C-alpha cells in the first residue's frame, strides 16, 4: 500500500425516488489498498460501489479517480471505466460468447491489445484460474464459481488500476465460495487495489487492510479489520456485528 490516493469520494449523495440511499460518503482508497465494505442490506454498500465507476450517477458530491473528478458533464466516463474493473453478484458473463471471447472482447474492441495479444493474455489468465480447458465452452456449461472466476479475469484483461467487487460470492453455492475468494485473495496479495462489498466477515478480516462499516447511507465506522471487528466503537456497528459474528 502506498500513500497515493487512487479513488476519493467527497460528500457523495444518491436518492432513488424519495429514498436517500447515500447521505454523504467520504472515503479515500489508496493505491494497493484492499478495502472491505460491510453492513446491513439496504445500507448503501452496493450503491456506493456502483457510484465509483458511475454505473450510478451520484446526485451530488465528487468522485475523484487518479486525481480527476469524473462525475461531471463532458467527462469521458468510458475511458475511466477501462481502468476500473468490476465484478457483479450475478456474474453477468456474456452468454453468447465463448469463455475466451468473453475475456478478449473489451481489450480488442477498445484497441488496448491486438487480437493476438488479447488471446495470449486470455489464455494466460484462464490458466491461472484453472479454466484453460474451458476456453471454447459457452458460459452455460460453467458452474457459478467458474462463471464468477471468468468474470474476474474478464475484468483483469483490461489491466485495471482498481477492482470493484459487488458481493462476488452472494449468489454462489456454499461449496463454490472458496474458489472465488482464493482468486480475489491472490489478486490482493499481488498488490491490486481492491474495494469489495461482502458479507464474508472472515474473508474481510483476512484480506483487507481496512473495513468500512456502512449503514443508513453513511460510513458509520472504519478501521483495520481486527479493530473494527473485535472492538467496534459505534453502537450501530456493535449491534450489526453481534448479529452476524
Amino acid at each position: 500500500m502506498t500513500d497515493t490516493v487512487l479513488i476519493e469520494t467527497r460528500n457523495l449523495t444518491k436518492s432513488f425516488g424519495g429514498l436517500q440511499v447515500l447521505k454523504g460518503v467520504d472515503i479515500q482508497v489508496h493505491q494497493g489498498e484492499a478495502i472491505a465494505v460491510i453492513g446491513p442490506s439496504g445500507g448503501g454498500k452496493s450503491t456506493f460501489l456502483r457510484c465509483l465507476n458511475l454505473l450510478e450517477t451520484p446526485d451530488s458530491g465528487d468522485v475523484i479517480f487518479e486525481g480527476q473528478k469524473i462525475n461531471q458533464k463532458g467527462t469521458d466516463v468510458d475511458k475511466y471505466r477501462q481502468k476500473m474493473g468490476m465484478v457483479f453478484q450475478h456474474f453477468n458473463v456474456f452468454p453468447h460468447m465463448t469463455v475466451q471471447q468473453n475475456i478478449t472482447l473489451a481489450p480488442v474492441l477498445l484497441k488496448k491489445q491486438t487480437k493476438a495479444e488479447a488471446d495470449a493474455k486470455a489464455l494466460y489468465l484462464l490458466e491461472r484460474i484453472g479454466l484453460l480447458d474451458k476456453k471454447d465452452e459457452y458460459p452455460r456449461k460453467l458452474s457459478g464459481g467458474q462463471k464468477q472466476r471468468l468474470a474476474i479475469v474478464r475484468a483483469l484483461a483490461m489491466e485495471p488500476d482498481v477492482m470493484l467487487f459487488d458481493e462476488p460470492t452472494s449468489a454462489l453455492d456454499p461449496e463454490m465460495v472458496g474458489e472465488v475468494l482464493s482468486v480475489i485473495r491472490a489478486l490482493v496479495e499481488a498488490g491490486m487495489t481492491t474495494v469489495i462489498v461482502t458479507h464474508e466477515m472472515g474473508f474481510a478480516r483476512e484480506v483487507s487492510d481496512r473495513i468500512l462499516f456502512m449503514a443508513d447511507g453513511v460510513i458509520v465506522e472504519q478501521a483495520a479489520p481486527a479493530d473494527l471487528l473485535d472492538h467496534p466503537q459505534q453502537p450501530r456497528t456493535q449491534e450489526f456485528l453481534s448479529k452476524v459474528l
Partner: protein
Amino acid sequence: MTFTTVFQNIIKLLAKYWDVFLVKGVSVTLALSAITVVFGAVLGALLALMRRSHLGVIRFLVTAFVEFIRGTPMLLQLYVGYFIVPLLFPALEIGTFASISVALVINSGAYVSEIIRSGIQAVDIGQTEAARSLGLTKGMTMRKVVLPQAVKNILPALGNEFVTIIKETSLASTFFVGDLMTSYLIVKGATYLAFESLIIVGAIYFVLTFSLSKLVGAFERRLKQSD
C-alpha cells in the same frame, strides 16, 4: 346444397381455376407478405432505434406514430395508403399494389418496432452494466452484447409477425390487388359459388400459415438449444 354437391363444386372449381388460386393468388399474397415483413423489419428497426434517441422530441414523435398505427384499423390505413401515396408522388405513377404495400409496410413497421423494443428490454440489464463497466461505449454495448442476445427474442416474434401478415394481407383484396382473397372475389364473381371458393381459399391460407408457424417453432427451438 348437400355436402356432396359442395364437394363436387370444389373439385370443379379447382380443376378450372387452380391457377387463379394457387399461382396468382398465392404468389401475390406471399409477395405482399414478404415485402411487408422485410421492409417492415427495416422500418421497425429504425423506429426502435429512434425510440431510444436521447432527443425527447424524436422519442415522442415515434411513440405517437406507433401508438396511432396500433390504434387505428388496418383497413383504414390501407385506404389512406391507397389514396394518399399516389398523390404524394404523382410523377412515379404508383399503382395500387405499390400503394397498398407502402401502407402494409408502415403498419408492420410499427408492430415490429414494438417487437424489437421488447426484445432488447428482455436482455438482462446486468449484461449492459458488465459491458459498460469494461469501458465499452453505449454503441459497442448495443452492437456486441445486447443485440446479439436480443435477436434470439426477436427472430421468433418476427416469424409470427410474418404469419399474422399473411392473414392481414387479405384486407388488401378490398383494392383488388390480386392476392388470394382477390382470387376468391374473382372466382365467386364468375361462378356465383361463394361458399366453395371460400373453403378453397381458407384451406390455402391455413396451409400457408400453419406450415410457416411450424417452421418458426422449429427455428425457435433451435435458437433455444444454443442457449
